[in-house]
Structures are given as C-alpha cells and as structure tokens.
C-alpha cells in the first residue's frame, strides 16, 4: 500500500517536472520583450499611485485608478509602508494601502517613483512561471494645511510573476503573458 502511494507521489512529481521542462526557454529577444512588459506594469502602477495620492485628482477618478491598480496585483498582495518617525514597517493589503493613500491628511501630496529597474531578473520556476524582482525608489512629499512639509525616499522591492496563458478572443486562441505584481517590500527609508 505504501509502495503504491510512493509511486503515485513520484509519478505526480515527474509529471509536474516534465510539464515545466516541456516549456521551452525564451529566446533572448522574447525575454527582453517580456522583461520590458513587466517593467512597464510597474511604471503603470507608479502613475496610478501618483494619481491616487494627488489631492487634485477627482474622487471618482481616484477610485477608478484604485480599481485599475488592483488589476495589476496578485490576490492577497501586500504593500509595505515605512515612516521616518518609526522603525517598524507596516504591511497593508494593497487596496487598503491605496485607500489610505487617497485619504492622507495632507493639503498636497506628490509621489514619484524613479530608478525603476530589475534587481533580480525574471527566472523560470519549476511550475513554468517566471519570477523576478524590480526595485524602485519612491519620493513622497506631503504638505500639511499649516505648510509643514514631510519628505522621505523609500526603496521598495516588488516581486513580479509572469505566466504564459491562453484565452479565446472572437473564436481564436490567443497566447499571452500575464504579468502580476506581488508583495511590495520596503528595503530602505531615508529623509529627503
């Protein structure tokens, strides 16, 4: 009986491994295109965050931007939040983070992401997905009603998941790359 169970487990593992091997490695040109696609999604998120934080953005537009930003993330992803005033880093579900960002108690908020680049290239995993890490620097500027200015720059690491999928469009099968963002972790926070 135990022998039979071992055989089943081994068979399943083999099948899993074979399915991963069955997917051919990407050509360098194709890899560049997929890397670039993933990087673009992070840049898109950067723009959404900037919009959501900006007090000039109409409420309905900010809410819509939250929904669009959420579509970039894997379910259950979290966002790390740091502050110069405390050592600990708080993690919020992404939607909650974005809603808090929209409601920040500042008269004016400006958020810019810069130096967006891979720190860990997309690597194929045994399950066929590609995983990489992109780092960004976020400069946050908040000005209170009283004119007090808070500025910090945070380095954040974003885990990227890329998966090959298929779908039907007007009766045709289309193969596409599904890029999803995972947790965003704070790796460093400094003044200014």
């Amino acid at each position, binding site marked *: 009986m135990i022998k039979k169970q071992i055989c089943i487990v081994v068979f399943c593992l083999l099948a899993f491994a074979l399915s991963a091997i069955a997917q051919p490695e990407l050509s360098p040109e*194709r890899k560049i295109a997929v890397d670039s696609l993933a990087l673009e999604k992070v840049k898109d998120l950067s723009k*959404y965050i900037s919009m959501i934080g900006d007090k000039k953005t109409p409420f309905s537009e900010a809410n*819509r931007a939250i929904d669009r930003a959420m579509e970039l993330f894997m379910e259950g992803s979290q966002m790390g939040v740091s502050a110069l005033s405390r050592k600990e880093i708080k993690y919020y579900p992404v939607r909650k983070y974005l809603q808090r960002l929209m409601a920040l108690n500042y008269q004016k908020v400006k958020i810019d992401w810069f130096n967006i680049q891979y720190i860990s290239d997309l690597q194929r995993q045994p399950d066929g997905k590609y995983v990489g890490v992109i780092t960004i620097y976020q400069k946050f500027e908040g000005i209170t009603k009283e004119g007090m200015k808070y500025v910090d720059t945070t380095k954040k690491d974003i885990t990227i998941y890329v998966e090959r999928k298929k*779908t039907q469009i*007007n009766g045709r099968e289309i*193969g*596409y*790359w599904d*890029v999803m963002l995972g947790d965003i972790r704070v790796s460093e926070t400094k003044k200014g």
Partner: protein
Amino acid sequence: MKITLSKNVFTLLLLCLIAFASFTTTSCGNKKKLAEQQAAQERAAKVSQAKTDLQALLADTNKSPEELERDLARIKAMNLNDPDVIAMIKKAEEKISKKKADIAEAKRKAEEEARLNAEKEAKLKPAKLTLNDYFARIIAAPNAAEANNYIADALKLFASPETPVLIAIGVFGGEKDYDKPTTIKKYLEYIKDQKKNLNTIDNIMYDGNGKIKELELMRKK
C-alpha cells in the same frame, strides 16, 4: 282666243321664272354674307379669347416657365394676325425668358449659399476623428472631464465598450506574443491615466454595422 290664252300663260310663266330667278340670286348672296359674318365673328371671338388668355398669362405669378410656354404655344398655334395679339405674345415671350433667367439665378444663388454654409459648418465642426486622433487627444486632454468626452466619442466607433483589444509585444519565430487582452474602454482609460500610448494600430476588424469588433495593437519598438 286660243292664241290669246297661250300668250297669257306664257307671260305668266315668264313672270314666274323671272321672280324665281330673282329670288334665288338674292338668297345666295345672303348666305355668303352670313358665312362671312360668322367667320368674322368667330375670329373676333378667338382674338378676344386670345387677348384674355394672354392678359392672364402676363399677370400670372404661379406658373412655371414651362407651363407658360405651353399656354403661349397654344395661342400662337391659332395664327391670329392681330397686331394687339402679336404685341402681347412678344411681351409674354419676354416675360417667360426673364422668369427663366430669374429661376436660374435663384438656383445659382441657392447653390452658392449651400456651398458657403457647408464650408462654414465644416469649419465649425471638428473633422471626423480617426482612432489615432482620439488616442492623441485623450492623452493630451488637460483634464479628466475633457478626456472622458473624447473617450465617449471614441467608443462610438466600437461595437461595445467591451470590444477586445489585443496588444502584441512582438513577433518571435513567426508567432505573436501578447500582453493580457483588455477591452477598449479600459484601454482608453489606460492611455488617459498613463498619458502615454506605447502602441500603434496593427489591425482593425469591423462587424456588419461598420463598428470595430476587435482591435489589435503592436508595441512600438
């Protein structure tokens, strides 16, 4: 006695003959005169009717030149050699040719006015925008409200806001690689939010109503 009677009968017969001949001659002359009188009367009636018709024709303001020409042709066909009628016919001809010229001038003016109006309208109305124009205007819109107006207009080109949009990121080994498919509404909102369009139009598929049922874009290199 017999001879006297015969003479008397002869005389009587002669007198009768003379009387008959005289009567017959007088009756023929009267008939001719009557016929002549009748003809003159008829002509006078015709002339009078022609004058009445011509007066009506000259006073008319409703009939078209073609209708007036038809009426005039009927009067001319009577060949009434009456100086008044001839003068009136000349006036009627002048009236018809003036009316024709007036109509032609009015038509020319109306056409010119229509052309000018069309030009004015074309200047006032924005030109029919292409999809690429909409992309550019949505991105360049100074505020969300204006961008949303362009989005609403652009969506009219599509079968529905859910029309699929494919974005090819490249062609590798003859196979196209795509980003995750989206919808036209989301794509237009995306370019509004991101203020960028990294793609060019690669292919457009239309439905039976001339609306776009699928849009394929290609990532710019």
